[in-house]
């Protein structure tokens, strides 16, 4: 944790205010306001084509917002004198010249900041690419490309990391490594902002979630709250007298599922409401459990309306991928 905090650590914060981006008629990012805090892993979650990559590009100044603003460490990315020390980025679409070796790719980027060759070698070893460091990047597998992307992101020892779908194409060992890496980086006080369309992946790594759909903010919440919000009103109840309980609980907006083998799933009521109603009518309860929706279910229920139906038009980020 407090190994050797370089100056400025702990202050790495991404601030987006009413961030909006249009490509022609299509609004890719729609009035996003959020902030990303240091010291934790913040998951940036949304279905494919929901504007995650566009948001990442806006943060990095690759694209200019149509409206609104986004800053990193208090400045527009473009205004930083040493951007690679501020933000390390792994972009979803490959950003490597296919004819250049991994070593020369990293070296060319390092040289823009006067980062020594030794650092390039260290990172190649760190991500496990030293045996293929002189191979042309065009011959890399997707997983090797991702490792090169991670090395690129860590090159400048940045206080903020911006990773777009980092586990894509990685083998299980690599995925495990990335998860630990992200947690360690956050534990060192860095700001870690990582996008994914996979809810389960975020459940294992993220502390906080920013969820978008169709470019709009859907949720900005802790992982626990996110699940709680989606699953608060589903209760499993077991009782020897389900028949009567059901009559007691009936009301507008309340539905039941199951009912076999003495258990019933009640939708639309909390455990407290079910328990109180049972007590009031003297009905014995053998089990009363709030149903934890899986993160995946929570995600699906929250983004269902936000996902584009039909044949989605290609967003520029997909077209560029």
């Amino acid at each position, binding site marked *: 944790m407090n190994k050797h905090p370089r100056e400025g650590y702990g202050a790495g914060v991404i601030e987006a205010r009413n961030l909006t981006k249009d490509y022609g008629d299509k609004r890719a990012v729609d009035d996003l306001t959020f902030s990303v805090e240091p010291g934790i892993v913040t998951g940036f979650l949304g279905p494919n084509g929901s504007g995650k990559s566009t948001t990442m590009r806006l943060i990095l100044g690759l694209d200019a917002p149509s409206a609104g603003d986004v800053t990193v460490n208090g400045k527009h990315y473009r205004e930083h004198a040493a951007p690679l020390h501020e933000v390390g980025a792994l972009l979803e679409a490959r950003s490597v010249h296919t004819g250049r070796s991994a070593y020369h790719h990293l*070296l060319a980027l390092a040289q823009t900041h006067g980062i020594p060759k030794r650092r390039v070698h260290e990172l190649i070893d760190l991500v496990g690419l030293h045996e293929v460091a002189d191979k042309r990047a065009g011959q890399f597998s997707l997983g090797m490309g991702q490792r090169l992307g991670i090395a690129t992101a860590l090159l400048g020892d940045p206080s903020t990391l911006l990773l777009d779908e980092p586990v894509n194409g990685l083998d299980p060992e690599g995925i495990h490594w990335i998860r630990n890496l992200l947690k360690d980086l956050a534990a060192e006080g860095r700001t870690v902002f990582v996008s994914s369309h996979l809810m389960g992946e975020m459940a294992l790594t993220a502390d906080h979630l920013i969820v978008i759909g169709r470019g709009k903010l859907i949720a900005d919440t802790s992982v626990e709250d996110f699940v709680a919000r989606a699953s608060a009103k589903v209760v499993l109840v077991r009782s020897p007298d389900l028949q009567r309980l059901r009559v007691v609980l009936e009301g507008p907006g309340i539905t039941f599922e199951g009912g076999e083998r003495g258990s019933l799933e009640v939708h639309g009521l909390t455990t407290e409401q079910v328990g109180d109603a049972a007590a009031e009518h003297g009905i014995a309860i053998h089990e009363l459990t709030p149903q934890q929706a899986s993160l995946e279910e929570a995600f699906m229920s929250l983004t269902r309306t936000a996902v584009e139906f039909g044949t989605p038009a290609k967003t520029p980020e997909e077209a560029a991928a």
Partner: protein
Amino acid sequence: MSALAPAQAIPRLEHTGRVTQARVFLSELTKLRSVRSTKWSLFTAVVLTIGVPAIAAAVFSHHWPQASPQDRADFHPLELTFVGVQISQLAIGVLGVLVITAEYSTGMIRASMTAVPRRLPVLWGKAVVYALVTLALMTPAVLLAFVVSQGILSGRHINIAFTHAGVPRAVFGAALYLTVIGLFGLGLGAIVRNTAGGIATFAGIMFVLPPLMNVLPASWNSAASPYLPLQAGEALLALNRGNQLAPWTGFGVLCAYAAASLAIAAVLLARRDV
């Protein structure tokens, strides 16, 4: 692939430095020399620049005794020295286009612009590095082309001496000409941002536009043609002025084309999304 190091072992960077134009020059030099196609294109340009006039000189020397009076009258030893330049200018121009468009086609441009978000230092870096590399390679290449081809022609005493008025200007001018052609290609590539489009634009302006000028009324054609990039630049390589601008005037016009293409590219680079 070897086992991954534990994440805890991420080495720290003790010293941090800011982006400077000098550092971007070094970065662009690394980029240029670390791609195989660059080396091959430049190597090919050097070989063609020297080899083609050498072969042409040998052929001419061999046939000289049988050459007609008309052939002899049309023969100009210095023009023969530059036949390789005529070909290698295509390689140099196309490579100039590729230096920038390959970054767009591979996605490297996103990494480049993330490292240097002010963007313009990357364009200047590419332009300066490519110009210096081209000049450094093509100056000895055209000198060798002159020495070799004139050496062969001297067997028939139909060569031209380096001390002949205008020859040093034309020989060194050929290297300058190729350098600026490369910059013109780079500027066009940066505007178009697409390899096929960039090469087509470059080849169109350089080689397709001149013959198209013939559809114009003759007086317009002869007034406008010397100002086209190819004709303007080649004025620097010529000893006898036909319908051409003065050598350095013509070269200045070519430089203006290259400068204009780079200026437009710079404005677009600063404004457009990457």
